[in-house]
């Protein structure tokens, strides 16, 4: 944010804060060790507020749980902003010194009275007011979010609305006050930092920045396109238009993980050439022309990953990889050699040192020796004598305008509900969630014996089920505008009337992405996994759906 795609705070800060606002995050289950830090904060007296449609295990720790309707986050955030403004609790000094666009923001939140917000979000107006006032009055506050904010068609707008709250109250850039997106994988942060984003070069430099792009071009001895590339959702659209005819998939399983997955599989199957590089023969690999078996780099090779607090840490080889598996970098270099570019086979440290020579602001000071000795370092770390940066954007608090730098802009974003609208035909909101003991499409967690694991089920509120005459455990068909899948029903206290949920962990049991909505956020490319409109149908005895036949074999099952 503010030009650097990373959380602003160190984990330690949540232990030293007065208030924690977890928004669209079930950190107790999805980021358990971060939640240990939250719990230490609570034990020291901090207050916890949780915004989540479900009554999660995280919400049970909260002083206030705001069970909003799926996809109404901006309405809720704006209503909170309006409450804070009405109470005169905005941080005027910070706003005047360090931000722009405040007047537009005031106009954007003006329509969001508590009454209207309660109507749109379903959250009690008094609770919205209490949360807003508590956030504004806290000396220090941490605002954290996860996929509940970002797996929507307007993901970036959702994030901007949360950042607005931090700017309004000055809860950023100070120890204990900040914004923390909790990343879902060990190197989501690092992948972006290394330039695996369509508009960025390694180190966060924009591809359109001639000066910095020039440095990369000189170092690499080749031309780097100055225009933004395609993100994943755009790639699938380009496949649809038959502009992209060959795809090289590295460590991703889109044949199971994409929304509206039947469509995604059809596009992958229709390619001229599909290469899959993975540690498993995934569902995507089953569709491939060539499969390149790679090492599990976190334990079978060397390198670095970057966490949600911008901490770069070493991964190391502990096991010999099986069979023909090779490190990803080995495969890439070998690929280059066979395409006529002999880059040799540099060690992981040599690759890293090249990155350090180019990512001047963020990584230049992070030698392997320092990463080893200091337990990782947090970027920006521009020099070997720089200690790293636990708290970002402290510059916004500088008195000297020159040191303060560019102001942080408010974003007057507009609320827009889920694209997959509820209707008489599809009256129930389905959201996808994660469980403590499983991970994404289950390729990696399917193999270990978790005593917590239960068979996949559509988790519903008993009232919704009983209205349809459905019993706990009964197998049903759930139908969306894109397809239908069968699943057993489970009554679950985390659901509530009108809201059902299911995980993506066991697609071999319930291929839920057959019915999720691929509509994606134009700014981030993230699909609307969190908001699917469905109906539940009772099954006739012995009936089978067509959907069951579209299943493809999967790894880890």
């Amino acid at each position, binding site marked *: 944010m503010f030009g650097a795609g990373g959380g602003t705070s160190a984990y330690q800060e949540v232990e030293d804060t007065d208030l924690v606002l977890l928004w669209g995050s079930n950190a107790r289950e999805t980021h358990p060790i971060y939640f240990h830090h939250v719990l230490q904060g609570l034990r020291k007296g901090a207050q916890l507020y949780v915004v989540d449609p479900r009554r999660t295990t995280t919400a049970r720790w909260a002083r206030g749980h705001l069970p909003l309707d799926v996809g109404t986050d901006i309405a809720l955030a704006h209503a909170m902003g309006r409450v804070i403004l009405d109470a005169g609790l905005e941080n005027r000094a910070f706003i005047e010194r360090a931000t722009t666009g405040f007047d537009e923001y005031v106009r954007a939140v003006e329509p969001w009275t508590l009454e209207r917000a309660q109507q749109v979000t379903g959250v009690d107006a008094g609770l919205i007011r209490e949360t807003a006032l508590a956030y504004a009055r806290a000396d220090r506050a941490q605002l954290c979010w996860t996929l509940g904010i970002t797996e929507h068609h307007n993901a970036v707008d959702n994030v901007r609305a949360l950042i607005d709250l931090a700017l309004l109250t000055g809860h950023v850039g100070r120890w204990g006050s900040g914004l923390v997106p909790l990343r879902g994988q060990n190197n989501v942060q690092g992948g972006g930092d290394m330039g695996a984003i369509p508009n960025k070069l390694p180190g966060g430099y924009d591809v359109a920045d001639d000066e910095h792009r020039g440095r990369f071009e000189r170092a690499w001895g080749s031309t780097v396109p100055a225009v933004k590339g395609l993100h994943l959702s755009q790639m699938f659209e380009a496949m649809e238009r038959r502009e992209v005819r060959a795809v090289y998939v590295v460590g991703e399983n889109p044949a199971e993980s994409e929304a509206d997955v039947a469509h995604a599989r059809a596009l992958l199957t229709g390619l001229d050439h599909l290469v899959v590089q993975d540690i498993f023969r995934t569902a995507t690999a089953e569709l491939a022309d060539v499969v390149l078996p790679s090492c599990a780099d976190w*334990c079978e090779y060397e390198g670095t990953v970057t966490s*949600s607090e911008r901490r770069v840490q070493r991964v190391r080889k502990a096991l010999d990889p099986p069979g023909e598996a090779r490190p990803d970098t080995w495969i890439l270099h070998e690929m280059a050699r066979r395409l006529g570019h002999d880059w040799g086979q540099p060690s992981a440290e040599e690759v890293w040192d090249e990155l350090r020579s180019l990512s001047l602001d963020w990584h230049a000071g992070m030698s392997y020796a320092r990463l080893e000795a200091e337990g990782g370092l947090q970027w920006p770390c521009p020099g070997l004598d720089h200690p790293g940066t636990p708290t970002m954007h402290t510059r916004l608090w500088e008195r000297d305008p020159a040191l303060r730098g560019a102001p942080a802009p408010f974003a007057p974003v507009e609320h827009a509900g889920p694209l997959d609208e509820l209707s008489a035909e599809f009256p129930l909101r389905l959201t996808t969630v994660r469980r403590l003991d499983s991970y994404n499409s289950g390729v990696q967690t399917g193999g*270990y014996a978790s005593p917590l694991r239960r068979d996949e089920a559509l988790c519903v509120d008993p009232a919704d089920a009983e209205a349809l005459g459905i019993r706990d455990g009964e197998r049903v068909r759930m139908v969306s505008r894109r397809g239908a899948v069968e699943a057993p029903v489970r009554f679950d206290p985390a659901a509530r009337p009108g809201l059902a949920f299911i995980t993506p962990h066991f697609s071999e049991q319930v291929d839920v992405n057959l019915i999720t909505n691929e509509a994606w956020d134009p700014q981030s490319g993230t699909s609307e996994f969190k908001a699917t409109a469905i109906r539940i149908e009772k099954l006739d005895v012995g009936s089978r759906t067509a959907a069951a036949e579209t299943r493809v074999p999967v790894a880890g099952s």
Partner: protein
Amino acid sequence: MTTVDLGTIRRLVSVTVDDVEHRVPEGATIMDVLDSAGADTPRLCQAPNLTPVNACRVCVVEVEGSRPLVPSCARRVEDGMVVRTDTDRVAHSRRMVLELLGSANDMSQAGDDVARWSIEYGADPERYGPVGPPAAAGERGNRHAGHHSAPDGETRATVAQPVTVDNDLYVRDYARCILCYKCVEACGTDAQNTFAIAVAGRGFDATISTEFAVPLPDSACVYCGNCIGVCPTGALKSVAEHERREAGVWDPEGETVTSTICSFCGVGCTLELHVQDNTIVNVTSPHDHSVTHGHLCIKGRFGFQHVQNVAPPRDR
């Protein structure tokens, strides 16, 4: 107004240990002073990532002006404090703790430190006679206060009992349990805050127990394994380690330990992969890392089967 106090700068205080003066920050424990001075202070229930619970009493020292011996792990230093570790009373007390624990518990997996301290302090559990008969499976966990019979004096009392194996991830070998409370602390407010286990019963019948002594799968346990991570005697261990020991292929000398980062979310927990024969046998985390403080979740500690080159226990 802030509700969470961030504390103030700590000043230095003077402490005299065995006639040597030390300058240490206020708030330090006596054990901190002893450790920084290089003393070999025995400890069982103490861990740097847990709140001291004063359970084992093996780290006791004499403090001038204090009638009882003082647990050095918990007592904070005060300016002018005079500490003695070299007295007969301290040595005798430490010997009795090691001897009595050794007489009732199987300390054979408690590590080299305990073995060294037992020799150093002259602990001799054998002098209490032959070991009494072990309890039947589940019996000790279901005793009620006052319902046990008095010892016959011919054999020494024991907590020996069969290993509890009621899930696929870890075993509870309570014949080794010394009631140090570390697992309870890690499951409770010091880390996991799940509160699946506590100390139940009184006196010699006290045990670590789930609620109503139900099997782990019926308890609140979420299998983070942080109890295993802090257990000092091998009473709690992974199924992988238990099976290897049972099969006689446990090979600590051939073990390598490699630090890496967990792949299962974006928090970035440091994992120490304990590998024997190209197979991960245990996963721990260093207690002095700011991210984990030594604690992990179920995925980090147990979710490695997908990179193993051998089948999981249930498929063998």
